[in-house]
């Protein structure tokens, strides 16, 4: 099953073949129909979305040249990011009774300015950290590729809403992989930009030096269009490298992937490397900083920062937080200041060492997740600290990282890779992603769910 790209939709709007209001109405109907099974959204504003769509249709009829870069593009927003007139719940009972946000987060405002239609707020782990969990204001979002399976997190609703065609793209946040993991588990493209490339205004802080905001979409082109709109001024577009093949670094044997990857993911990663090499991509084995050192620095910084941000509030209002979140938020209180500072110093050295190891390659190639998504269930509260998280590396180093889908598992669940690029070279990374997307040919496949009733023509 396919789904239309932003470019295809906008062409159809421009030519009059489709109306934005019809597309939005169909999307809203899918949201309603899917909510009990997928729990993708926390809240949505159908009247406002339809009114905006009708206004955009009218504008297009008057002046077809008035089409903005995201004109008519439906976007969902993770519910830890402010959208004017809607409550930011962060999927936490601690926000019960909170008033609506008075203004959009700057990133949301930029999407609107480009013509995007903000449909609503999507599910997430509590404050992007405590989940999946069953004692929160909304049940955990479910993977549209296999209901009752984990869709990845913490931007779970972002991944589900895009994969199930409940919006065209989504805005998520990523502190240790929270954009790229749902992108991987839902068969999507997800971009965590360079640290600081996009402002975090209007985003509920989790870990001040690791938080990022970025897009999830169904293909690289859609992802780039959203990212361009988020940037002010837009990032320059990058072409394929001239006169040479793409060059990708891969970890040397013994780095730790052998112990970390579950067999099906390991098989996928080996097959992808063979496929890329056969297509002329140069793979360069590199000696990376020790995986355990990256994990220790990343975990200590994140847990200390989360405890700093949330510790006093959770202790003061313990019952208003979920069990998973409150334990995770408080355990970092026991990290001494000197250990946090040491981790920060290690972070600088590890980042320098990793970027030096990459040299002039275009990106580092890693799996998007160590395992295929499992069933939704009460999780081990501290599972993510017990083994290295491949996604957290780019949060530690601050370099941009792009998740790409590659294949389906034997159970029909998506698997994927991620590309870790050079700081502030998102355009180069996206150009690489577009090239690999064509080689790997995962394409626009959508999950075989009942919520995608109309295969769209491109």
């Amino acid at each position, binding site marked *: 099953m396919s789904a239309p790209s932003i470019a295809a939709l906008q062409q159809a709007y421009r030519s009059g073949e489709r109306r934005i209001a019809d597309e939005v109405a169909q999307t809203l109907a899918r949201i309603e129909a899917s909510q009990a099974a997928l729990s993708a959204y926390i809240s949505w504003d159908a009247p406002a979305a339809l009114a905006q769509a009708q206004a955009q249709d009218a504008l297009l009829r008057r002046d077809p040249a008035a089409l903005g870069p995201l004109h008519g593009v439906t976007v969902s927003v993770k519910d830890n990011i402010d959208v004017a007139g809607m409550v930011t719940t962060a999927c936490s009972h601690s926000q019960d009774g909170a008033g609506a946000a008075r203004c959009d987060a700057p990133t949301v405002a930029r999407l609107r300015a480009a013509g995007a239609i903000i449909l609503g707020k999507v599910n997430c782990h509590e404050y992007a950290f405590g989940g999946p969990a069953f004692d929160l204001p909304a049940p955990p979002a479910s993977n549209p590729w296999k209901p009752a399976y984990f869709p990845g997190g913490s931007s779970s609703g972002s991944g589900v809403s895009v994969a199930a065609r409940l919006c065209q793209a989504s805005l998520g946040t990523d502190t240790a992989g929270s954009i790229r993991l749902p992108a991987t588990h839902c068969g999507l493209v997800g971009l965590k930009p360079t640290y600081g490339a996009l402002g975090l205004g209007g985003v509920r802080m989790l870990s001040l030096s690791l938080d990022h905001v970025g897009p999830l979409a169904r293909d690289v082109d859609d992802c780039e269009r959203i990212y361009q709109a988020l940037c002010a001024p837009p990032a320059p577009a990058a072409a394929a490298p001239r006169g040479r093949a793409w060059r990708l670094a891969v970890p040397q044997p013994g780095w730790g992937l052998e*112990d970390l990857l579950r067999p099906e993911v390991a098989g996928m990663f080996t097959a992808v490397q063979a496929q890329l090499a056969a297509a002329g991509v140069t793979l360069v084995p590199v000696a990376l900083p020790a995986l355990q050192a990256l994990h*220790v620095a990343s*975990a200590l910084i994140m847990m200390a920062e989360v405890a700093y941000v949330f510790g006093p509030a959770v*202790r003061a209002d313990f019952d208003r937080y979920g069990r998973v979140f409150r*334990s995770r938020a408080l*355990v970092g*209180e026991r990290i001494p200041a000197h250990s946090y500072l040491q981790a920060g110093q290690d972070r600088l050295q590890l980042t320098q060492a990793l970027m030096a190891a990459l040299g002039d390659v275009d990106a580092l190639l890693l799996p998007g997740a160590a395992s295929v998504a499992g069933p939704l269930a009460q999780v081990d*509260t*501290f599972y993510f600290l*017990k083994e290295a998280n491949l996604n957290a590396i780019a949060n530690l180093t601050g370099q941009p990282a792009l998740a790409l889908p590659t294949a389906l598992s034997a159970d029909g669940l998506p698997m994927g890779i991620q590309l870790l690029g050079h700081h502030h070279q998102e355009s180069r990374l996206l150009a690489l992603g577009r090239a690999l997307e064509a080689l790997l040919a995962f394409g626009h496949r959508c999950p075989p769910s009942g919520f995608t009733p109309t295969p769209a023509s491109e």
Partner: protein
Amino acid sequence: MADVTSGEPLAGHRLPEQADAQEQAEFQRGLAVIAALLAAQRHQAHASLQCHALAEDA
């Protein structure tokens, strides 16, 4: 890779009294993981110092 689940618990740190025994026990397991991470960090710093000393000797 070192096993980070084998650290010693950090004594004297508990959740507020509203937490039940199961939640307190889970929290103690979390503290053990943090302790193991801190131990791994000390081990890495020690190894790094040794490498630095060897480099200076050379």
